[in-house]
């Protein structure tokens, strides 16, 4: 099992939006998808997934719909809304800026000061 990382606070929403942006997913699918696209590095605490989904739905960033699952069962599928798409774009850009800045800061060598 590869080493897993703890989720930074505030990043769960972003990951969910990303996961749902690729393809409509049910809750359990979101969990699997995040694990998959992070190369099994990120483990979502199962209990906090659903409150986050409900919160995003409440904010109209994702919408939900009941549909048949692959194994022919009724499941609630989440899709990204237009507002969710914009939010994901903003957050991705923000994250990249932050990550670049932090990386630059951490890579600073003594002679560069």
């Amino acid at each position, binding site marked *: 099992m590869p080493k897993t990382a703890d989720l930074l606070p505030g990043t769960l929403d972003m990951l969910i939006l990303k996961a749902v942006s690729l393809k409509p997913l*049910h*809750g*359990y699918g979101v969990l699997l998808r995040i694990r998959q696209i992070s190369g099994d590095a990120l483990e979502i*605490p*199962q*209990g*906090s997934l*659903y*409150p*986050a989904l*409900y*919160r995003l*739905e*409440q*904010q*109209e960033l994702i919408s939900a719909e*009941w549909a048949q*699952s692959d194994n022919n*069962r*009724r*499941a*609630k599928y989440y899709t990204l809304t237009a507002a969710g798409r914009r939010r994901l774009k903003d957050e991705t850009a923000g994250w990249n800026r932050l990550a670049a800045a932090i990386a630059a800061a951490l890579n600073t060598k003594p002679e560069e000061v």
Partner: protein
Amino acid sequence: MVRSLRSFFRSLTSSLTSRHSFEAAMSDELRFHLEQYTADLVRSGVTPEEAARRARIEFGALSSVKEECREAKGMHFIEALYRQWRYAIRMMRKSPGFAATAILTLAICLGANLMIFAVIDSILLRPLPLPEAERLVTIFNTYPKAGVDRDGSSLTNYYERRGRIKAFASLALYRPGTAIVGGPGATEREAITRITPDFFSAIGVRPAIGRAFTEEETTFRTDSVAIITDSYWKQRFNADPNVVGRRVRVDGLSKLVVGVLPPEFRFLSSQAGIYLPLSSRLQDRSQDRRHSGGNSTHMIARLTPEATVAVAQSQIDAHNASVEGESENAKRMADAGFRSLVVSLHTDHVATIRPALLLLQAGVFVLLLIGVVNLINLLLIRANGRGKELAVRQSLGATQSQLVSEVVIETTVLALVAGVLGFVGAAGATELLGILGADRLPLGSNIAFDARVGLVAMAGAVVIGIVLAAPIAWFNIHRPMGLALQSETRSGTASHGVQRLRYAFLVTQIAMAFVLLAGTGLLALSLKQAMAISPGFRSENILTGQVSMPWGSYANVFQRLAFVENVMREIAKQPGVASAGLITNVPLSGNAGKSAATIEGHVLKPGEPPHGIYSYGVGGDYFDTMGFSLRSGRFLTDADSRRAERVCVVDEDIAKRYWPNADPIGRRLWQGFQRPGEASEADLFTVVGVVGRVKQAGLTEDSDQGAIYYPYAHRSDSEAYLVVRTAQAPESLALTMQKVVRQVDRDLPVTDIRSMEARIASSLSTRRSPALLSGIFSLVAILLTAIGTYGVLSYAVAQRRREIGVRMALGAQPQQIRIQFLRLALSLIIPGAILGLIGAIMTGQAMQSILFQLPALNWDVLGGAGSVIALVTLIACLLPSHRAARISPLEALADQ
């Protein structure tokens, strides 16, 4: 912000409408997750049982995840409220007796408060139903040193002031009265009001149809016009849209209808259906008529938006000083303390009943406090009984805010149910207000139980709910949890702090009941004193009725005299009539007016105020019929009106004031003010008799103004009261009285037919109703206090059951146990009584102004109230003490 509000409302509505489907969907979704995960685990080689276990563990507590989801969707608030509401209902169902007691107590207390509040609200608080009513004032003349507190305003005042007082945007006069309305054979006496043309513009009302009066319509030759109210228009003119131009007969004269008032028009307590111009001759407006207001003509004004009452008052004072000048008459008026007072119209109109209403509200509020304290004590006892349950829940993670909101919701639900019941009950009991005479109060017809009162009821209920919850919530939070969990009884331990709180509440309750009862005692004693007063005549078996002779057919005194003589002669012949008389104004009718007289040979000393004297014209056998006492000389007879010699009768106050050491018989006086040297000898009246003093304005009046009775021919008015002494029940002659008057003049109705005793009773209604109401309040208060005492004591006994059992097992005598609890009772009753005594003394002081011939400190009342309270609370203590003494040691110790 808008977005979050919108989403809040969406979640609120969606959660209200689809709470059930939301819950079901959420459960489905979470179950789907768990099943998928379990299946995946099984596929990776875990046994099904182990997989299910791991899935559950990794997912976490399902209920808390659900709660977080609800919170995320904004469902949590509603959910919590709903859950606590259900809890509150469940608690009530579990102890229906408690819930019923609590709701009933609150409903009675709240209902009584709402009833009084509705009266106060419509009479004292709501502005008059006129535009910008707060700018309306009334102006009246007062001569306090002459014993005339109020004398209206004169026509002269009006014409002199109009347009000259800067603080007044407009100024008007009105004169309420009655008139015979209708054609021959179908006449009725109706309330009317005569007004100056600017009256309606001053009060801010425009006729809905037609126009107001004009300045040209204020002389007797040009005043044949009338404005009618909406209800008169609907009843008498069938709401004819072309009513302007039609005619109405008033006092035998035909008047042209020129306007109809809007439906919502209401002026103070006026019942008048017809408004007529207040006509006058030029000499009625002259300077020497300035002080002849006569308390029948009233002045109102609308202040300019920037003016205040104080500014208006100073301008009126300055104006009075400038028109009065330095004349001898001005000096005499100054000696009488003359001033014209400017008072807010609303305040002035309700001034007489304000203290009694506020007192009642205070009394009924104390009742509410007693009820609330009672409930707090009951709730504290019950909360104590649930100590262990709460401690367990707290240790399982119930938060403080949950415990608090739970209590608040429960008590608020109780209070709201009680509020609705109380409101419905009070609204249903409006008839009771009618019985108590509330609709006869000024503005009493405005009393309404409407949304406004309902809103106050609900707001009050919520406040009460919170007040009830506060001590309980505090107690629940601060209870030492560990102790409750360790103690072996189901109820947990009692905290000493809470016990002290309970006892303190009980002491307060006893004190408040004491105060209420003592206040009632003072009112009742005061009423009894007032009822015991002799009016100065024999009031039993007298029937009275009012006739008014219209100016049209009774313009001169001989016409009026002839009518009076005819009626007297005819009515004396009727079976059942012992004797009959007539007077311009019957005692205790509530509208006695005073005027001046000039005593021959009596020179006013410098600074001596002239006296206002009750002056009457009498006909028939008035004195004998009323049962006046004769001090010396003789009564007036019918013949005195026809004799050339002018005579009069004075009462003992006049005799004492002007001829203290001499025989008043044969002395002489003039009607009205006469300047020395100008008065004619021929106008003198010779005193032929002295009669006893009678109460003129009210039984409780305490003045020696004096009264002079003239023969009817020398002092008559358009209005007169018939008085008949009967051999049987006086009311049975009411029809006879009407028939006789119609025989003499078929257009004259007799109105306001009442026995003299009924008049006396209604003159006391402002004393009787508060006494009766506060009596009812006190009764409820005592009952509540008894229940409260009983409850607290019973609880003390139940709590110490084991202790008592042990002591009895060790040989304590039942008597000792009983005494122990009685001592506890006394330790509560005595401080309660002492506090109550102090409160009652203070209340008595505050009530002094409405008490009649009673010192504020009345030991009989205080002692009586104290004994009643002590007795009732002691009895309430006896039963629990007795029960304590009968506790069987075996049972008590075996008990859980």
